[in-house]
Structures are given as C-alpha cells and as structure tokens.
C-alpha cells in the first residue's frame, strides 16, 4: 500500500477523510527524500486534531486492556491454555475496534451539543444496565427488575430520536453509536475494575456450587474468570443492543418528523 493511501485510510478512519486526501495530494509535490518526514507529520497532525472525547475513548480502551492484564498477572491460574490467549486476542481486537470507531465518530460529530448528548446518553445507558445488575444481585428476579432491562435500550432509543430530530438520521445513528461504545467501556471498566479489586466477590451460593463442580483449585481465580467473562460479554452486548435500539429511535424520529430530518 502506498504512503498516500495510508494517510487517506488513517484520515478516513479518524473522520478526517477530506484532510487525508488534501495531505495525500500534497505528497505528490514533496521531494522523495522528504516524503517520509512529511507523512509522519501528517499522521501526527491527524492524531493531534482528534477531539477530547477521542482521547477519552483511547484512555478507556487502554484502561480496559490494563484491567485484563492486571487480572492475568494477579491470577495466573486464569491462563488455562491456548484458548485463553485466543480470548484475550479477541478482546484486544474488540477494544481496538471500539477505540477507532469512537475516535472516528467523535470527530464526525462536530456539534458540541451532540457530543454532550452522546456522553450523557452513554452514561444513562451504563447506569441503566448497572441498575439491572444491582437489582439482579439483590434477590430473585421480579417483574420490576425484568422491566428494568428495557431501560438501557429506551435511553438509547430516546438519544437516537433526539439526535435525529436535531440533525439527520445519519447523525442520529453516529450519536447513538458513540453513546453505545462509551456505555460499553464504562460498564466494562466498572465491572472489570471491581472484579480485579475484590477478587470477584461477593461469592454467592451458585458460584460456590459451580466452583466445586468445576474441579478448579482456587475459588478467587474461578470467580475472577467467571466475572471477567461476564464483563467481556457486557462489552460486546451492551453496545450492540444499544445501537439497535438507538437506530430504531432514529427511524421513528425520521418518520415522525420527515420535514426537519434528512439523510
């Protein structure tokens, strides 16, 4: 791949496609011996121009990786074979993908109110799912706790509808996509951080029973493994469910106010 294409690709991923094409076009004017330095400068410029939220996403991604690394160091028994490293590799890929997507989306959403809306929606989605987890840990599922499952998707739907009504369904989807990714990171950091800090406590009766049946030697390692697995599922599922619900909100808003929204 030529250096010009690398610049265009990086710029497109970061939501600055026009600047990528501008830099690549200038590259044709630069003498061959200076091209390497020019390209390095352009790539640095693209990264420097990222908004604060993109850097926050990068920090969240790095923290998520640090949580898993800390768990692996503190509980070496978590590594049970090649399968563990495959799972870790998949997790790293997901985190890198989320960070790149969040950086690109936060660059595309230029209006500060939309960025603030995405952050608030992300926080709302994360709080909703955290409340579901708390309710489930208190006792047996009730109708009220089951109804809370709809809270996170509802927040995402409202956020999508709000952003669509404000601009267009494309912007609405981008806004809700960013909110979903932020919510996923927030939940994983809360869940994973708590798991590593408290060795997967509290240990409930079901966990102890499963531990005895598993033949594992160490309850703490078993609990951390179980809880981190749940955290990783949250990281995958919450953004996915939120994005689907948010996109539905965008569609509803576009149909309700077709005159004010556009593609």
């Amino acid at each position, binding site marked *: 791949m030529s250096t010009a294409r690398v610049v265009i690709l990086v710029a497109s991923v970061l939501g600055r496609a026009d600047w990528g094409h501008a830099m690549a*076009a200038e590259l044709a004017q630069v003498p061959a011996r200076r091209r390497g330095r020019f390209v390095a400068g352009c790539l640095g*410029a693209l990264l420097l*121009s990222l908004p604060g939220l993109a850097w926050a996403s990068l920090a969240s991604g790095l923290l998520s990786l640090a949580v898993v690394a800390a768990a692996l160091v503190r509980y070496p028994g978590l590594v049970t074979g090649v399968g563990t490293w495959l799972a870790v590799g998949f997790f790293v890929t997901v985190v890198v993908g989320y960070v790149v997507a969040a950086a690109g989306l936060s660059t595309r959403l230029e209006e500060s109110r939309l960025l603030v809306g995405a952050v608030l929606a992300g926080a709302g989605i994360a709080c909703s799912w955290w409340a579901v987890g708390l309710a489930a840990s208190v006792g047996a599922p009730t109708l009220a706790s089951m109804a809370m499952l709809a809270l996170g998707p509802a927040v995402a739907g409202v956020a999508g509808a709000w952003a669509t009504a404000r601009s267009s369904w494309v912007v609405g989807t981008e806004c809700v996509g960013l909110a979903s990714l932020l919510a996923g990171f927030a939940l994983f950091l809360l869940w994973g951080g708590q798991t590593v800090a408290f060795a997967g406590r509290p240990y409930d009766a079901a966990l102890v029973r499963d531990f005895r049946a598993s033949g594992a030697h160490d309850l703490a390692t078993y609990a951390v493994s179980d809880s981190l697995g749940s955290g990783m599922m949250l990281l995958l599922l919450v953004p996915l469910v939120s994005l689907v619900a948010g996109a539905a909100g965008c569609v509803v808003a576009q149909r309700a106010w077709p005159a004010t929204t556009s593609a």
Partner: protein
Amino acid sequence: MARRRSHSPQTVRVLHALAAEPAVWRHGYDLVVTLDLKSGSLYPILIRLRDRGLLQSRWEPSESGRPPRHAYRLTAAGLAEAAAAPSERIATRRSVRRAGLETA
C-alpha cells in the same frame, strides 16, 4: 467582553502569511516550504483554523495524473483575526512567559 483567544507563534506566522495576499489560494506544501514549518505543525493549525471558520478551502485541479490539491485562504473573520494577532515576536514572548508560569 469576550476574550480573544491567543495564538501560538506558528499560528501567527500562518495567519500573517495567508493575510499577506488575502485573495491568493495557497497550498499546504507551499506553506510548509515558505514558512519552514513541518507538516505535523502546519496541518493541525490549518484544521483548527478551518474548524473555527477562519479559513476556507477548495479543491483545485492538478496537472495530468496528479490528484486535485486543497487550497486555502482566510475568510473575512480570519483576516480580522490576522490583523488583530500580535507580531510573531510578541506571540513567542507570550508563549514563553505562559510556559514559564505553567512550570513555575
């Protein structure tokens, strides 16, 4: 009264270079050469100036086989900003003073 945002010495150089011939569209690499700036310094300035509405850009066709080039010139707001910007020497002095205060 709204406080005017202070610019880095490099930004002041770019503003003054573009304001020197306000009707002329300039290219990125020409500015790199003329102002002896690195691309890593120039492009963040151009991106910031355009995001703030101080710079306008357009695509210009190139010679055969080469991709169209992005050209830049200041908007009316950009020209006003350039006129109000201090000289590069004053901007440098201010940024050194600011750095001193931050490290003190």
